[in-house]
């Protein structure tokens, strides 16, 4: 589904990703762990085509298509979803208006008819309920005045509405207490299916207790330095990252 070959990228003239390889098949959940500054968040931004993240080498194929040639919105419409670590607040743009614009764009791309307003409202309310968000959130500005937990749940709700092929969760656990973490994890788990893949980027093993990965990769200094099964996460929890960083050198 997603095949990353020797990816290299830089931000503000500084090389951050230095030859990353990763192959993800439908239905798989890959966890990417690593110390701060390893390039974890950069990966999500590069894959979704953020301005200022310059790809300097390598290729990324998404369902056989060249992902790196697409604009940010084309990638989204093709089914790549990034759940942000710090979702931005957009005062004045209501959640409802935003969600409808987004879903319409994605459905149009897939040759599906746009929802009428009533059906969509019903659907949106349903999803709100699924992630335990009050319906009033739909009327408010995008993420405006939301708590950290509400912002993350809003991200998961968008994922549910957009039905992407691959989801990148960028440190979704940061800033969440254990209850909020469970709600978010349940939302993610409900979306797991044989067709949908996940990249779960996290610093801590904790999230992986709830979203159990098929593979764990350790990212250090812009490269994957070690891969394994879910037990690798436990090992990291116990021993920290330094021993792997040493190995990587």
């Amino acid at each position, binding site marked *: 589904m997603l095949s990353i070959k020797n990816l290299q990228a830089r931000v503000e003239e500084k090389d951050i990703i230095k030859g990353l390889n990763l192959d993800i098949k439908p239905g798989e959940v890959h966890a990417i762990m690593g110390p701060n500054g390893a390039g974890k968040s950069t990966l999500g931004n590069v894959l*979704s085509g*953020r*301005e200022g993240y310059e790809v300097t080498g390598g290729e990324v194929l998404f369902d056989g298509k060249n992902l790196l040639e697409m*604009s*940010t*919105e084309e*990638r*989204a*419409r093709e089914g790549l979803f*990034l759940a*942000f670590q710090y*979702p*931005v607040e*957009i*005062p*004045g*743009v*209501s959640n409802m*208006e*935003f969600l*409808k*614009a*987004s879903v*319409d*764009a*994605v459905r149009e*791309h897939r040759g599906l008819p746009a929802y009428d307003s009533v059906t969509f409202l019903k659907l949106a309310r349903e999803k709100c309920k699924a992630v335990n968000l009050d319906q009033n959130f739909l009327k408010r*500005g*995008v993420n405006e005045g939301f708590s950290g937990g509400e912002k993350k749940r809003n991200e998961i709700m*968008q994922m549910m509405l*957009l039905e992407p092929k691959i989801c990148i969760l960028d440190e979704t656990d940061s800033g969440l207490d254990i209850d909020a973490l469970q709600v978010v994890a349940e939302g993610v788990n409900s979306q797991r299916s044989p067709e949908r893949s996940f990249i779960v980027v996290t610093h801590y093993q904790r999230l992986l207790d709830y979203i159990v990965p098929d593979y764990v990769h350790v990212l250090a200094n812009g490269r994957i330095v070690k891969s394994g099964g879910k037990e690798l996460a436990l090992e990291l929890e116990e021993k920290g990252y330094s021993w792997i960083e040493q190995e990587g050198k």
Partner: protein
Amino acid sequence: MSLAFNEQAVASLKNLPAAPWLENIRASGAQVFSVTPWPNRKTENWKYTSLFALDQQAYHGAAPQVNLADDQLFAIAGLDAQRLVFVNGHFNAALSDKIDGLVCVPFSQANAEQQALIAQKLNGTFKQEQHLFGALNNAALQEGVLIHLTKNQVCKKPVQIVHVQSADAGFSSYARHVIVLEQHSEATVLEHFVSAAKIAENIHNQLTEVFVGEGAKLNHYRLHLESGSQSHFGGVHVNLAANAVFNSFQLALGGKIKRIDVVVNHQGSGAHSEINGVYLPKEKQHIDFHTCIEHAVPHCTSNEVFRGIIADQAKAVFNGRIHIHKHAQKTAAELSNKNLLLSNQAEINTKPELEIYADDVRCAHGATIAQLDEKARFYLQSRGISRQEAEVMLSFGFINELIDGIELEPVAQLLRPILAKQFISDERLARHLI
């Protein structure tokens, strides 16, 4: 001084019939107008607004009596209001409601007692020597509305005062409103300016004087929705007594020249004003908002937020002055002005001013001219929304924040589609707004 416009304006005043009880004020207005220097680039108050265009056009035909078939131009769906309608400055009884429950009469129908009240209040909120178009408004004084609420009277139903411009030949029209709220009374007044779609270039000069008594509250709206060919010179001048409250929402689409002054005099301790405004000029339009918040006594508060989006070759001016007088201790005054320029030829001139003569006050102002937030745009794009549509949504969101704050929901509903249309060339891009 003495340019074509101003000579003709003085000459044309003779054509306006004067009511005997207004004659004195008219005479003094004409006198002051004729001796007030005509503004030029060095006149601080007119630094960024040239009146040159006024001389290039004749505006001195008599404002014609026109009958409109219906209220399509100014009906606000879902708004339960009492309405007075003026067409080209003339009161139109057929389109107006029979007002119930408060004193709300056109000058032309005022009784002796009401005439006396009007005469007593006129020029109570500004000095015509410092207000060129105020002097002209005095000189042309003829018609307007008196709204008077007695002590403790609360009028739940909004009053909608409509001014329609409609004619084939250019003219100037004038009106003056006087709104008097006695102690602890409360009212909502909506000033609504519209014009027929394709009409000649006209000028409307409309001054509103507001007197909010002790503990009284006025919710005020002023909507300038005339077409781009129209010019407007006018404003709202407000006196606030102790603990009085003035809430105002101002909106202006662009015109040939629009100059709107909003002046709030906090004269009684504990008075509070809240002013939100939006301006949206496009094409070659020009808007000039001059606001002045005067704090003359202690313990008052004011909060002012203006946002502008300037498109095409349009030009906007915002001058926001906060003046804290010597004994106005414990004042809290804030002003925020934010602008978006949408084109290479658009222009904004903003000047937030503080003039402070008391030390124990909290005053702050901020002004920004900025592009759309890059982070927000990426967020929208990462959800599949095209860059173009994301920009439209964010531009609209920039002013929608203020529209969302409007208390009368039918007014917000009226405005959203009008605003969305203002700066979006491709209608499809606006499909998710509103």
